[in-house]
């Protein structure tokens, strides 16, 4: 998985210029149920991975999320 591309996709959902690996998801203004839904849709459509609702709630940073998606792809 191209992590830079993944962070770029996250940035689009979160409506910011850049998402860094260490960025804490909850600290983004628009990290709400709609953003979570958009992330679930993005991981399904672009990476063929079904991230569960409870999994995404336990993720802290953008890198955690990238790792979760990567693990699920294997």
């Amino acid at each position, binding site marked *: 998985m191209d992590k830079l591309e993944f962070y770029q996709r996250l940035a689009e959902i979160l409506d910011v210029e850049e998402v860094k690996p260490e960025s804490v998801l909850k600290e983004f203004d*628009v990290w709400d149920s*709609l953003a979570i*839904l*958009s992330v*679930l*849709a993005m991981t399904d*459509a672009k990476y063929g991975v*079904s991230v569960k*609702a409870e999994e995404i709630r336990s993720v802290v940073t953008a890198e955690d999320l990238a790792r979760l998606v990567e693990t699920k792809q294997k």
Partner: protein
Amino acid sequence: MKCIFKNKRISSIVAVAPSQEFRFDDEYQYFKMTEPQAKRFKKIMGLDRHRIAPPDVCASDLCLYGVQQLLDAGVLKKEEISAVLFISQTPDYILPPTSNVIHGKLGLGHDVICLDINQGCAGYLAGLQLAFMLLELPAVSKVLLLTGDTGSKQMTRENRINYPINGDAGAATVVERSADEKTIFMDVKNDGSRYKALIIPGGAYRMPSSPETLKLREVEEGVVKCLEHVDMDGAAVFNFTMDDIPPQIEAVLAYSGETRDSIAHFFLHQPNPFIVTQMTQKMKIPPAKVPNNVVSLYGNCSSTTIPLNIALNCREPMLAETRRVCLSGFGVGLTWISAVMDLGPLDFCKIVDYKPA
């Protein structure tokens, strides 16, 4: 569970929407949204307007209004009705069954089956399945399948998750025997272990109505509700729609010997335009075959999105000819049912606004 039926058809569809239309742009103030938040929400979810019934209008009123259209048009006679099925989560009363109330208001004879079914977004398919089963009985000639919900009564307007996508509506569908032997293929699935994904926890008998169940709380920003209001785990429901429905639709296509190409229309339940778009992409179905405008124009009206969809988008062709279609309903329960069948030519197919005399 796979099932097949023969010699049965849908002969008429009428969908009834309350005439009161509300626009998201006028309502987002109630959801505590700023203008940029509202714009983002509207764009991602594909919202525009919806229909909401006045407080004194029940789902059964919308359904009965639809039945009256069919009687007035002469495509249905009272004495032909052998069964009244009322599929809803907003009945008139806890008891008696609303189907009996409707039976009485229509003035039907005693030799009629009346059944209420507590179903939501899979309700149209659950009702069709039961109608097809009833039509196996020689005594049954026409089944009146009524779907209707006034979901707006199960939430506050100050609820940004549920209210903007909700729509109230009802529909009457007539199901009867046909000489056509083209097989109807269905797949029915349930998973009660996920019953909490969509639930109204209070107000029945597990948690009886009390001042506590009626107490309104702001559970998160822009979401005011009590325990007698609908509670949805949006992410779990999204997982459900993406993980369970596409494989079922693919399985029922294979079972029926059809393909994405040979099916003319996929009439999916529409929770919101966002989910339907994601599902369509995932299944690699051409978007033109998957009409996806019910929620933007009327709101998510539970078991009525499918008949409303047919009448909204395919009225002319469905009155004129036969098309092979795929129907899929999925939601509360969790229940998911998909079917491949012929539809049309219908005797009647229309959307009307509820305007009682």
